[in-house]
Structures are given as C-alpha cells and as structure tokens.
C-alpha cells in the first residue's frame, strides 16, 4: 500500500513502523482530496482570498534591455502572504489537516520562512503549533522566531547535530512519532517520505499552472527556459510542472554553489559531483554525504538552500535529462541581487537570487523573440540581517550597535 511514491529510482517512504498507520491514513486522505475537485477549488479560493493568488508575472524590462537577449519575466511568489511560495504548500496542508480532524501541527524550519508560514496557517486554522528550528538558525533568524511566537507558535531550538535544517527535520519526526494521533507534520518541501514529495508538489503546482497561462497571455508563446532555485525543490517543481509536457521549454534548477563547488562549502547536490545516492530523512535521493553514508555539513548564504538532500522527483528529472542543474556562488548571488534591486525595484530572497544568477548568465544567448521566466520564490526584505551583513553595510552595523547600547541600559 505504501509502496508507491517512487520517481525512477528515487523516493520511497523509509519510515519507522510506529508511523506506518499515520502514513496510511495520510495517504488515504491525500488520495481522496487529489480526486476531489472541490478540494482543489477550496484551495485555490483560499489562496486567492487569504494570499494573493494568482501572483503576478512581471516583465522585467530594464533587466531585459540590460542583457539584450530574451525577455525576462519574473513569477512573483514574493507577493504571497508571508512573503514566499511556502504559503502554497502550508495552506494546502492546512486544509488537509482540517479534513483529517487533527488539532496540532509541527514543522521544521531553516531560514524560518516555512516556520512563519506554518505558524500563520496554524493561527488561521486554529491549530496548536510547534516549530523545530536549529539553534544556530534561531540565533541567526531571530525576527522570524519573534513572528512565529507572536502568532502563537512554540519555537523549539534544536541543539543536536549541526543545529540546522536537517536536525530540525529529525527532531520534528521525533515529535511526530510521539504525537501522531493529534498531530500532522507539515513538511516544508518536496522531500521526505511519500506522500510528501507528491503532496507538496501538487500544492506548489499552482505556480506553474498560473505561470503558463500568464506567459501565453503576456508573451504569446511559451518561454524558452524556466529558472528556479532549488533547496528541497518545492518552488522549482511548482513552476516546472506547468511546462513539464512542453519539451521545447528548458527547465533549469539552480543550487547553492556557496563558496564554489571546488571548496566543498556548498549545497550543490545535482549540479556538482559531491553528492551520491543515499537514504535519509525517510527517502532516497542524491545526498551530500561521505563515503560511510554520514551526511556532510553544507553551506550557503541562503539558509533555505542549505540542505543535504533534494527532491526525489527532481533527481529523477535530472537523471532523465528533463531538468538541467547549475549552481550559483554566494558572491554571484549578491551581485545578481544588487542588480535586480537597482534595475527593477524588486528584492529577491537570497534563495531566489540563485535563479536570477543563472538566468543572467544565459539570457544573452537567446534571441529577442524568446522569453524566459525566473521563479522569484520569495522576497528578500525579510533577510535584512543576512543581506545587510553580507554586504557589510557600515551604517547597518552602527545602527545595530546603537540599538544594543539602548537595550543595555
């Protein structure tokens, strides 16, 4: 019954026995809603009244002129409520939880984006909510912790392992195996055991459905290429699904190149050669692991891409050649971000800016009669602490120091 959820060699559901029934139930409910057009309609309705769907497709005229190649369109997931595509998945799972009659949700979070989205959903649906977040991320992303708490969630700092995203996932599983009767685990990306990859991809497919319609209307034909950053892969799969059947549309996933693929300090699973097949966190995919199968520490300026695994669905599409992968380094990301702010008045999240990097590298090779779409998965203004930091902005530092002096009094 559970033996589904494979994409080529990848995926599966490597779960402890204690969760077997929970997954059986989850699969049953998910299979039901998938067939239920009314559920999807309710989801679309919710996203269009509580969030801002359809999110716009913005023509980036200045950037297009600057590079002089294909027209650049930007899919604006940053305009979602809570500022990123994460809202799509979370609100969808929220509706499912309501159906299942559960009263509590838990989630892992890295950058805090998925945590904020989940806390938001929980407030909206009246669920209890606990968020697991690596202690190091709690330190780095205090503003997000503040908002989660204000929305009524309990944020638990995870002090094990590397104290980042993967450890938060493990800890959320540990909570779940204790509280599965009352609790649903809202996984944040297209990873983890089946049915999560399929389920998250399904909710995120709303991006691609809209984008396809929008580009046809705005540009009159399909784009030559679609770019998206890839952490777990949810925003990428979200938009890619809209063009999967269109062989003429190249799909490009951009991973975190960190300090460079040669440095070892990155999170490139499919773009680099450091990853190998493995099974962890409940699924089989390409992991950044050592020869023993122990997971490695990863690095990226973008916390949301800083993860050891990647969606089994994407790994399959990579293997089959349908999705091409590239990596963007931290410093390329800061440059692309700067250019996009200056030229378009748009602030991509550090994660999203990875997609922009690769698009900028390639767009000039395409004709003026072509278009490309970049999926802007989220907005960067939530990242002020990281971005101002990364630019080493001196006035920002002075501001923080002055504020601290006030607080010390």
């Amino acid at each position: 019954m559970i033996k589904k959820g494979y994409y080529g060699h990848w995926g599966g559901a490597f779960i402890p026995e204690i969760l077997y029934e929970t997954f059986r139930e989850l699969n049953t409910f998910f299979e039901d809603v998938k067939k239920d057009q009314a559920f999807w309609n309710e989801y679309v309705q919710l996203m269009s009244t509580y969030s801002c769907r359809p999110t716009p497709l913005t023509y980036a005229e200045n950037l297009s002129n600057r590079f002089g190649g294909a027209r650049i369109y930007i899919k604006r997931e940053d305009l979602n409520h809570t500022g990123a595509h994460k809202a799509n998945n979370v609100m969808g799972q929220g509706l499912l939880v309501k159906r299942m009659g559960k009263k509590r949700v838990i989630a892992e979070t890295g950058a805090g984006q998925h945590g904020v989205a989940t806390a938001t959903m929980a407030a909206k649906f009246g669920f209890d909510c606990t968020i697991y977040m690596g202690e190091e991320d709690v330190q780095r992303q205090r503003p997000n912790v503040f908002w989660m708490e204000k929305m009524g969630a309990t944020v638990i700092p995870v002090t094990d392992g590397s104290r980042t995203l993967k450890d938060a996932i493990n800890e959320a599983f540990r909570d779940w195996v204790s509280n599965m009767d009352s609790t649903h685990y809202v996984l944040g990306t297209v990873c983890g055991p089946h049915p999560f990859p399929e389920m998250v991809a399904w909710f995120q497919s709303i991006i691609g459905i809209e984008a396809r319609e929008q580009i046809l209307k705005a540009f009159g034909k399909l784009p030559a290429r679609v770019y998206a950053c890839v952490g777990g892969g949810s925003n990428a799969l979200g938009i890619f699904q809209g063009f999967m059947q269109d062989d003429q549309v190249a799909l490009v996933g951009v991973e975190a190149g960190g300090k460079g693929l040669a440095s070892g300090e990155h999170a490139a699973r499919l773009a680099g050669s450091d990853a190998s097949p493995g099974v962890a966190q409940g699924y089989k995919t390409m992991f950044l692991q050592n020869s023993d199968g122990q997971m490695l520490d990863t690095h990226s300026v973008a916390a949301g891409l800083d993860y050891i695994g990647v969606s089994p669905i994407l790994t399959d599409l990579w293997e089959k050649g349908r999705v091409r992968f590239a990596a963007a380094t931290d410093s390329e990301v800061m440059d692309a971000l700067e250019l996009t702010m200056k030229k378009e008045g748009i602030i991509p999240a550090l994660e999203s800016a990875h997609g922009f990097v690769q698009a900028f590298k390639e767009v000039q090779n395409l004709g003026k009669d072509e278009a490309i779409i970049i999926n802007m998965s989220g907005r960067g203004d939530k990242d002020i602490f990281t971005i101002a930091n990364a630019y080493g902005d001196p006035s920002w530092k002075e501001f923080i120091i002055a504020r601290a002096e006030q607080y010390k009094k």
Partner: protein
Amino acid sequence: MSTLEEIIRTHLQDSRILLMTHLVLGYPSFEVNREVIGQMVQNGVDLIEMQIPFSEPVADGPMILKANQESIAKGARVEECLQFAGEITKEFHIPFLFMTYYNILYKYGLEEFINRAYDLNIKGFIIPDLPPEEGREYLDLVRKQDMAPIQIFAPTSTKERMQRLAENGAGFIYCVARRGVTGKKTDFDQDFNEYIRRCRSATPLPLAVGFGIRSKDDVDFLTGKADIAVIGTETIRLVDEKGAAAVGPFIAGLR
C-alpha cells in the same frame, strides 16, 4: 527456524526472560565498548545489539542521538565498527546484532554489507527506517545467509500489519513499548498488556520489548508476557555517569 531463533528458544528453556542490551559503537570509545560488552556478557546478557552510528538517527531519542553524533565526531568509521564487531564476536559467544539506519548498508553496498556481517558472525539486523515494503532485496539477502532481519511492532500496528511484518521477520520481533523515541520512561499499564497480547497473537516468533526499560521492576513486569527485555538508553546513561564498571552490577540486578 533461523539460527537466532533457535538460540533464543534454547536460552528460554533456562530463563523465563532473556536480556538484550544495546550500545553505540565508538561511544564513548571502542575500548569502553569492549569493556562494557565484557561486563554485559559476564553478568548474563543474552543478546547484544551494536549500533553503527549514523548522522541522522531519527528514531532515537536525545541520549542515543548524542552518542551517535559524538562517535562520528570523534572519527568512528563504518569500517572500524565492522572490524571491532569481528573482534567482539570472536571474544564473546552470545548472539550479536547490528542496529543501524538503512543508509549505512545502502552506501556500503547492500549485498556487500550483509555478506560482511555474515563473515563477522553477526546474527541479525535491526534497521528502524527500513519497512518491509522498502526492504525486499534486503530481506532476501539477509535470509539467504540465515541471518535475522528483525521486524518491529509498534503500538500503532494493527493485527494485519503485525502478521505482515512477522512474515518478513525472523529471529524475534522487536516490540516498541510505546509511542515516541528511545530514552523516555514507559508506563506499563493496561494498554500495554492489551498491546502485547495482540503481538503474541500475530506471530509465533519470540517477542522482545524495548523502549524505556530501566529497572528490575520493568523486567519483572515483562516476565511471562515477553521473551526478551531490551535495555537501551539506560546502560549508556550509566556508562556516562558512572563508567563501564557500573554496567555489570546493574545487569546482574535486573533479573
């Protein structure tokens, strides 16, 4: 009947309940592991599961999690664990099992790993993140070598599910005593009795009960209901707090 089950059944003729203990290889060191195992065997432990550390031990609680991570952090490698296991099975003559997560086998090469374990005289495997649906090949390979792919029952498992699991298992069944991860206390109450009855009716295999067993009282409670009591986290805590020498007396006092 697998060799492991045979050994267990033989022991059960002398003992109303067997003891299985657990340790994490390389934590706090292989030397201490060796000493602890010695203490265990000398004091009447019947089976030992040796956990090969993994960086993402999802099914384990804080204590064992930390042991996994420190072992790896101190540089323990899989190869080292295997060699050590070989030395141990030579020195001590009770059945040893490998407990670990699936990625350790997968990355090593499933067949190579199983064959190597066979050569090391390992009697079975406990892999908490490998349900039978995902473990077809593993099950076949393990059983081909007459080793035991231990299956796990949980309080959430239905009778049908238990039967299904048992069909895929051998040696004994590991019955998780309660929801949650390793290392927390278990209340052995009416629900538990009902659960263990359900386990018993689903399979003729010997039943081991683990998760939260800490004391002679717990073992006494299980006697007559289960065949094997599994002591996990408690000995790790003991070694942490009082050193390896404390393990012997603790074990001796359990039965």
